């Protein structure tokens, strides 16, 4: 069923068919599949398409199951596309636009989303630093330069070819993160009460954020006085994820892929009180207010910096 819809959508939406749209309720994500047998029947989109015959047969079968309607009818297909537009059963979205769902997560990961530390007691923040350092090991400039390629920004890094062929990855150097790279300040600002928190996007195989305008990260106080956070810096300065890091081909072939990051440097935050922070992705068509999954297009955490 899904496959049929996707392939039908293909002509009119040249790109969107190639990845699975993914809203909060939908998790059947696409990935480059060198699948097991049982999975094989469900051919992947990114995979070189199967023979036309097979395709048709499958469609026929699925259509019979799904609607019990005759196949190969152009009029019917049009109607399908139309009705899909009204009500997409796959995603259960009414009048669905190209709603893209980014899921994001932050680092350091400390088993909770409450960042609670005392500036003057290194023991309280040391584990954040260790966590960040560990996380950023894979982003070391030397490693990136050695393993990955520097690809042109602002466009997808599409690598056609055999599906089990190894893919190259774009460089994301630790130094992009400037003050939050831990290179200059090995404590990532924690020692000064200006913590760095890294925002990364959850990897989804084949996902291509179809961006018109760049998606910007922006943080603010979630509840309470807006002025509790007086300034935040973002690195890279664009506060966005570059297209060249997409699509992701899966870790089996895309071995050295490094997720793009946006570092948020909370340079001036009210001390000695819990400040709930919400960092959202903002841009055209970005969903960031889903209630069930609070990591869609946003992340919420609290900062409680004691001095």
């Amino acid at each position, binding site marked *: 069923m899904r496959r049929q819809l996707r392939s039908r959508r293909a002509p009119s939406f040249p790109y969107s068919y190639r990845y699975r749209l993914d809203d909060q*309720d939908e998790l059947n994500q696409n990935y480059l599949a060198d699948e097991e047998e049982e*999975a094989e029947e469900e051919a992947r989109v990114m995979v070189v398409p199967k023979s036309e015959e097979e395709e048709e047969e499958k469609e026929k079968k699925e259509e019979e199951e799904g609607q019990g309607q005759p196949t190969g009818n152009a009029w019917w297909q049009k109607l399908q596309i139309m009705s899909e537009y009204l009500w997409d059963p796959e995603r259960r979205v009414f009048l669905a636009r190209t709603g893209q769902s980014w*899921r994001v*997560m932050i680092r350091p990961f400390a088993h909770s989303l409450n960042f609670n530390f005392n500036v003057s007691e290194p023991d309280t923040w040391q584990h954040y630093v260790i966590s960040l350092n560990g996380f950023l090991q894979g982003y070391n400039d030397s490693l990136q330069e050695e393993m990955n390629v520097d690809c042109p920004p602002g466009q997808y890094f599409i690598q056609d070819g055999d599906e089990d062929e190894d893919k190259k990855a774009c460089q994301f150097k630790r130094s992009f993160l400037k003050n939050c790279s831990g290179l200059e300040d090995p404590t990532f600002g924690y020692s000064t009460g200006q913590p760095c928190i890294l925002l990364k996007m959850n*990897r*989804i*195989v084949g996902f291509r954020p179809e961006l018109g305008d760049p998606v910007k990260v922006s943080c603010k106080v979630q509840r309470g006085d807006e002025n509790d956070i007086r300034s935040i810096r973002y690195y890279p300065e664009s506060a966005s994820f570059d297209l060249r890091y997409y699509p992701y081909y899966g870790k*089996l072939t895309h071995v050295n*892929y490094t997720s793009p990051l946006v570092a948020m440097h909370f340079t001036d935050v009210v001390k000695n009180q819990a400040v709930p922070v919400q960092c959202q992705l903002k841009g055209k068509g970005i969903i960031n207010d889903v209630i069930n999954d609070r*990591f869609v297009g946003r992340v919420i955490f609290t900062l409680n910096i004691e001095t």
Partner: protein
Amino acid sequence: MRQKRSEIYSVELSGTKDIVRTDQGDDKEKYRGLKNNCLERKKKNQEEDFQKELQLDDHKLNNRELEKKYGTNIIMGLSSTRAAELLARDGPNSLTPPKQTPEIVKFLKQMVGGFSILLWVGAFLCWIAYGIQYSSDKSASLNNVYLGSVLVLVVILTGVFAYYQEAKSTNIMSSFNKMIPQQALVIRDSEKKTIPAEQLVVGDIVEVKGGDQIPADIRVLSSQGCRVDNSSLTGESEPQPRSSEFTHENPLETKNICFYSTTCLEGTVTGMVINTGDRTIIGHIASLASGVGNEKTPIAIEIEHFVHIVAGVAVSIGILFFIIAVSMKYRVLDSLIFLIGIIVANVPEGLLGTVTVTLSLTAKRMAKKNCLVKNLEAVETLGSTSIICSDKTGTLTQNRMTVAHLWFDNQIFVADTSEDHSNQVFDQSSSTWASLSKIITLCNRAEFKPGQENVPIMKKAVIGDASETALLKFSEVILGDVMEIRKRNRKVVEIPFNSTNKFQLSIHETDDPHDKRFLMVMKGAPERILEKCSTIMINGEEHPLDKSTAKTFHTAYMELGGLGERVLGFCHLYLPADEFPETYSFDIDAMNFPTSNLCFVGLLSMIDPPRSTVPDAVTKCRSAGIKVIMVTGDHPITAKAIAKSVGIISANSETVEDIAHRLNIPVEQVNQRDAKAAIVTGMELKDMSLEQLDEILANYQEIVFARTSPQQKLIIVEGCQRQDAVVAVTGDGVNDSPALKKADIGIAMGIAGSDAAKNAADMVLLDDNFASIVTGVEEGRLIFDNLKKTIAYTLTKNIAELCPFLIYIIAGLPLPIGTITILFIDLGTDIIPSIALAYEKAESDIMNRKPRHKKKDRLVNKPLAVYSYLHIGLMQALGAFLVYFTVYAQEGFLPHTLINLRVEWENDNVNDLEDHYGQEWTRYQREYLEWTGYTAFFVGILVQQIADLIIRKTRRNSIFQQGLFRNKVIWVGIASQIIIGLILSYGLGSVTALNFTMLRAQYWFVAVPHAILIWVYDEVRKLFIRLYPGSWWDKNMYY
């Protein structure tokens, strides 16, 4: 008693032994058994009650003593004030209805019965778990609260359902109150008054006339030709005369007491009330009946056994894995939740409801065949019945005297005794018959009630006693309009029957205008009639009555008497016209006409004939391995005759007495083992120890119990039950009601049956057709087989539901199926299919096999449990896991990545869990995938349950022998399964609390090969069972 009766009309010949015994034994003979019985059951109050009954001696007192005893006056009656006092003291004259369990208690019982306790425990554990979670974390998820509530809801729903079913079936019960006569004519304050019978008190003087019910136990003070129908109390078909004479020590046998709720058929009687309400004989029997505990039905025992097995498995696996989980360092709280999951997975929540529905479907089917089942579980009981104790009168017989044999011209003729008398084939050409028929017609006072022109003759109501009715109907059928014949032969004078004459005589003008003679016709006890005769008519000619003719008469008389029939002799005399001219004035007091030297014409014998369907039904019961025993209050001779004619004693089997008679040796010398049949009287029974009774029940194939009291019927039923037999009792009278209650299944006659019997019974045959019992047996056996199938079907998936939890605990996979989802299988998709199995036809001729052994042939036996749980169940679990792994693999979690993933998977703070392809998943995404997994697992089970359903259609035969499409309901079941599955997945997929998601269509087919494998596997099993009967395979694989 018997002697008395023989004086009336007839003599039963070989009853002498009994009579002697009766006379020797004191009046307690019938009640000794009762006394023992009571002692046995150690019910003190009852015992006292019956002892009080023994002390009844009012029949021995004369009128003056009675007046004194009850402080009343025979002429004036009680004063109103005294009556009011007594009423206040003794309470109203009505039977206390049997104690009803309060509805709320019944309801609560349903709430804790069966698996409910387990589910309650599960629910409370859920809430406790939530309480603990809440106390440590205020934002704890409400899932456990939901689950607990759902479990409680399930318990309450199934409880309400069971309660409703039970209430529906008990509503049919009518009460004893119906038997109470509405009004009574009583003398109080020297005035005749009509008062409600309920207000009668002891000492009241009441008048009862023909057609009324006796309003209380009364001592007869005076009577005019009163006869009462005691058949519901004693099983005697014949009306009993009632007079003020004290005739027997035993209050039940004496003539001067009329019993509450019996009917006065004719005449009038005035009597003094000596017992009211519960203190009456009927009251005692009623309390005896209600004192008999309701036995658990065999199917109830089976279901309990099954519940124990399943609960045992659930609890032991639950606790085992609780311990394992704790020792694997799971938190106790988590382990507790596992425990709940295991319990829910193990308990087939819907099964008990399914069983109820299945039983009620069969009950409905049986109701269509005129078997009304009052107690649902009794539906199956009949199927496992191994002994039927049948009452005679009204059950096996028509409870209607009917002419059975005629003897004239030195020949015995057989009359048709079938229900409609349609086929009278005996030779009617002889002129002796013409004379005989004339006597039968004329010497008869019975008349049809008017206004019944369109009613078939045999169904017409008649005024007159049973014998006369029989003769009237007999002659009406053969000769046509009897009334017209009587008109043509005008009656000049008659002497009605009385106990001194012991004959009935009438003198008529003849219908031949040229014959001016009067015809005197007479009927009565044969030997009395013979005494009055000097000639005998043979082929229409009078012959002198010599010794040889007298001998042939005696032979015939003996023969007919030996058939248990009541014999009447008929004679006539044409009075010579010269001596008795037309104007002659007959004087019945002076007897100015000859009453000797008459001409003997013939004998006619009557019996209460068996119902025409009974012999066939008895044969069928026999071939189904069911022993049919007759238990009757009637006389042994009659009982034996009926037993022979219906096949309860088969044609070629003999009793000890028969053998003795044939070999001409004393009874003592006969080898007991040679006799296949036995006839045991109540008198013999009361002297027997329980062991002796057991011996008789075990050794004889064909047994008739005669002259038994209600209490002895009870003892007999208990004796049969001691043989591990499932006992069915059929009966219609009040005297049967204790036995009906005691029996595993009591079957009452719907038309002839008294309300007391119907009340005590579990099943009512609406058409009084004994053959319906055979239908019942067949349905009962079928339902037992089909319940096996249903249970096997239901149990299978429990393993598939259980394994996920075990693997979840041991291997740390994300939970494959949720508790709520399990409930949707148990109470959703599986319900209709398991009911559909009730419609399955029998695999072989179930009426040719022995009834199941109560203790050996269990509903759920080891092969069933093992095959369902470990063979098909495990295959099903594998198939369902295949779907589960397919879904996860498709999403990026290959099976090996799932192992021990549980902790991270369920961690709310891990929102970028990596899968096999490096994709990262938030907690919510994982949860959604988990639900998809639930749905997948659900679909996997569902698909394989379809195969399971198909294989369960048969236990031994191949599906193709049984026919895949013969049971259409199975396909309805399969359709319902699929439709419910589709609705759950695609319709309710968006309701978060239900944990269903929209599953991709192709996942529905992943388990199909597995389903086919299950089918093939089971076909192979059945093939080997058929190929190698009795082999190891057969013993272990046939359930």
